[in-house]
């Protein structure tokens, strides 16, 4: 073993408190060290040349640089030693600047500690072995999970760049939440007018395949090579034949709740969610279908001009391979009825959620854009009334620890302002509109101005305070609350109360995260790899995030993130082969006792059971999946798993070296 030790002065950054020259000379006594040198600026070009020269002339096979933090220059010096023909992983840094010279004032002390740090680095470098990055072939197809605006944007960007994209959507149409919206803030432009052309683009793009009414069943593999099982749910309609004529829906005698309209209207057992649906295909909700429930009917089958009805249809499983996955599964509306009992738990008909109101405002919605009091709707001999007094309450299921949602949902302040304006617009300027708020968060471009407009131009009355109780009295909804600015109790007789329900993680998000092996937070939102520096990546290489599945987001942010994610995916898939870090775990199968604890604890799914020639099974690390965290290493009871570059023996040796010599 021929180790070279290079001690940096870093000008006076190190040399002021560490005798770089002296400890370099002392380091020559350490086992295996054959060359030492002190350099004024090791990272400078002459400094790097000095290392390379010494490697060649002294035939060094391992190098220690005692200088700054490895976070600063580890990569630099790895390249340096590689340039001199040495394996870049036969290198170790001793951090004698940030961890020594800069935190000590006394030179003898500083020198002594710096020498100890060099000893530790030498002890570690002795245990290192050459490592080689692995290369894997990359599949260039991309899976986008979720067909909302995030998924659509990402899919279009990727498809435009020439990649094949599969969009998997759990509903029968893509579009997501945005398709349910009437207008968008702060421009009040029509949501459908922006979205539906993009939906059509998606369906017509030669590089995009939409798999609607499908879900992810299983994900195997690793970055560049995922194998995904997709379950196509049985719609009881042969979509290859269905022409989307809606005849079945018109003739179907069975009513069913209308999820697209947030339950404020009904649809039919066989349905197409909305006229602009993509793909426009019918599906049967078997729980409400008379044929499935009672064994008679088959009206749809009779009326279908395309002969597309297939009552015997079963779920179908498709296996596809992808190089990268974009998760864009969106969010759900906070189920306020389960939490806010003081607001009637959903039993007061004139208390509705923001998204329900959105459907009511929509010209193609169940009320054709007329704002009506639900308590007066759908009754014989009663003319539906327009509300005269509308109260909005913000922060429902947001910023509320008592319902387990301490976070801000990001969109409610703005959509409330939008809906308040639209109320005035649809019903008339004389309508009384109140908004109860805690704080107004109008942080985006044009947002603050928009809220101001609601207040000044449209005369929406903003009341700072929380509503303590809602109850029915004489055909009105009593709104009892506090105006904290005036310090007064407020009571309003409202005709309609709209709760600005916040955003909650999509139903089934955590199960999907487990299938994908990505992490999620306590609320069920998926976790980015780093909140600032890697906001689009997950901790599982090759899986990226877009939209509100990561955290509550409005449309501009969602679209921006989706495009960013697409760029990340393109960056990844631009390469034909991927290099993977060699500093990963490795199993000594001779000693493996097949207890599978490694598989249990790995956050990434890197260890697998490998069948050996004798029929036994031993642990094996899939190199491209392993991220090198070492959790399995610390868990393996026989210590047969080791972490290359951070070996257990090297950890022990560093400790022993510094304590015993």
């Amino acid at each position: 073993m021929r180790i070279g030790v290079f001690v940096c002065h870093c000008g006076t950054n190190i040399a002021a408190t560490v005798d770089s020259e002296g400890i370099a000379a002392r380091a020559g006594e350490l086992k295996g060290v054959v060359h030492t040198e002190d350099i004024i600026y090791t990272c400078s070009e002459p400094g790097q040349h000095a290392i390379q020269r010494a490697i060649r002339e002294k035939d060094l096979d391992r190098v220690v640089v005692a200088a700054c933090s490895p976070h600063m220059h580890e990569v630099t010096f790895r390249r340096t030693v590689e340039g001199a023909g040495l394996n870049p992983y036969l290198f170790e840094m001793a951090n004698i600047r940030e961890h020594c010279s800069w935190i000590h004032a006394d030179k003898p002390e500083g020198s002594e500690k710096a020498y100890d740090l060099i000893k530790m680095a030498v002890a570690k470098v002795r245990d290192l072995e050459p490592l080689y990055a692995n290369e894997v072939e990359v599949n260039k197809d991309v899976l986008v999970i979720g067909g909302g605006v995030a998924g659509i944007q990402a899919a279009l960007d990727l498809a435009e760049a020439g990649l094949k994209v599969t969009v998997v959507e759990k509903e029968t149409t893509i579009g997501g939440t945005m398709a349910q919206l009437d207008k968008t803030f702060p421009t009040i432009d029509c949501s459908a007018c922006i979205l539906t052309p993009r939906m059509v683009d998606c369906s017509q793009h030669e590089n995009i395949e939409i798999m609607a009414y499908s879900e992810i069943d299983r994900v195997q593999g690793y970055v560049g090579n995922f194998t995904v099982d997709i379950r196509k749910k049985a719609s009881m309609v042969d979509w290859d034949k269905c022409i989307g004529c809606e005849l079945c829906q018109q003739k179907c005698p069975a009513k069913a709740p209308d999820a697209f309209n947030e339950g404020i209207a009904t649809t039919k057992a066989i349905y197409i969610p909305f006229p602009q649906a993509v793909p426009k295909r019918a599906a049967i909700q078997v729980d409400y279908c008379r044929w499935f429930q009672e064994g008679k009917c088959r009206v749809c089958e009779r009326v279908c001009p395309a002969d597309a009805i297939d009552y015997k249809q079963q779920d179908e499983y498709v296996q596809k391979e992808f190089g990268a996955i974009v998760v864009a599964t969106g969010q759900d509306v906070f189920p306020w009825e389960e939490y806010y009992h003081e607001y009637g738990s959903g039993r007061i008909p004139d208390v509705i959620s923001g998204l329900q109101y959105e459907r009511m405002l929509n010209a193609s919605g169940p009320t054709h854009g007329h704002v009506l009091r639900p308590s007066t709707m759908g009754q014989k001999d009663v003319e539906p009334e327009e509300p005269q007094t509308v109260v909005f309450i913000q922060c429902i299921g947001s910023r509320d620890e008592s319902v387990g949602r301490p976070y801000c949902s990001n969109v409610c302040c703005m959509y409330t302002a939008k809906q308040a304006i639209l109320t005035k617009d649809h019903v008339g300027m004389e309508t009384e509109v109140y908004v109860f708020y805690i704080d107004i968060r109008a942080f985006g471009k044009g947002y603050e101005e928009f809220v101001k407009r609601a207040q000044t131009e449209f005369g929406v009355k903003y009341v700072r305070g929380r509503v303590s109780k809602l109850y029915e009295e004489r055909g009105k909804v009593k709104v009892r609350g506090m105006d904290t600015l005036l310090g007064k109790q407020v009571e309003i007789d409202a005709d309609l109360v709209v709760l600005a329900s916040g955003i909650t993680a999509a139903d089934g998000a955590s199960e999907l995260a487990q299938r994908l092996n990505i992490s999620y937070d306590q609320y069920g939102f998926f976790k980015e790899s780093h909140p600032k520096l890697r906001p689009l990546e997950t901790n599982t290489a090759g899986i990226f995030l877009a939209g509100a599945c990561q955290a509550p987001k409005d449309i501009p942010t969602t679209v921006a993130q989706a495009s960013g994610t697409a760029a990340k995916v393109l960056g990844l898939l631009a390469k034909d082969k991927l290099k993977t870090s060699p500093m990963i775990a490795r199993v000594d199968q001779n000693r493996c006792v097949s207890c599978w604890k490694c598989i249990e604890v790995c956050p990434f799914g890197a260890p697998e059971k490998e069948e050996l020639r004798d029929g036994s099974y031993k642990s094996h690390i899939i190199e491209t999946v392993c991220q090198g965290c070492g959790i399995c290493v610390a868990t393996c009871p026989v210590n047969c798993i080791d972490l290359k570059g951070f070996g257990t023996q090297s950890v022990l040796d560093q400790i022993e070296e510094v304590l015993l010599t």
Partner: protein
Amino acid sequence: MAQATDITTGTTASWDGEGRVKVVGILCNWCSYAGADGAGTARLRQPFDFRIVRVPCTGRIDPLHILKAFEKGADGVLVSGCHPGDCHYAEGNYYARRKLELLERMLPQLGFEAERFKYTWVSASEAQRWQQVVTEFIKGVEKLGPREGRAL
């Protein structure tokens, strides 16, 4: 400072010196090691009796490594990683937390004073907190002095 003159030739590490204690730190690469870097960059003075071993993640630490450090003569061991929830590898510090907690609770049974071991979380941005943690910990160990005639 008898060692001062010996520094280039002497063999006695002043770490062994009178009144000195030997404290080993095992730090995760992503948060606490970077936090200690930050403390250095900010020139925050820290005790001398401390040597850091860098590991990728606290989840990579086996409590036995810490016991081994004690066996080899450490007077104190400080483990620090990312705050729970902020692990670079998503879950490593959650696994570590259980193991380290058990170790912390078992050490008194083996005759260790509680002040000799601590595990904590310091993020990359908490340079000041790092200074405080390491200073207080080493003060605690110094109060107890070196371990002698020990079982482990």
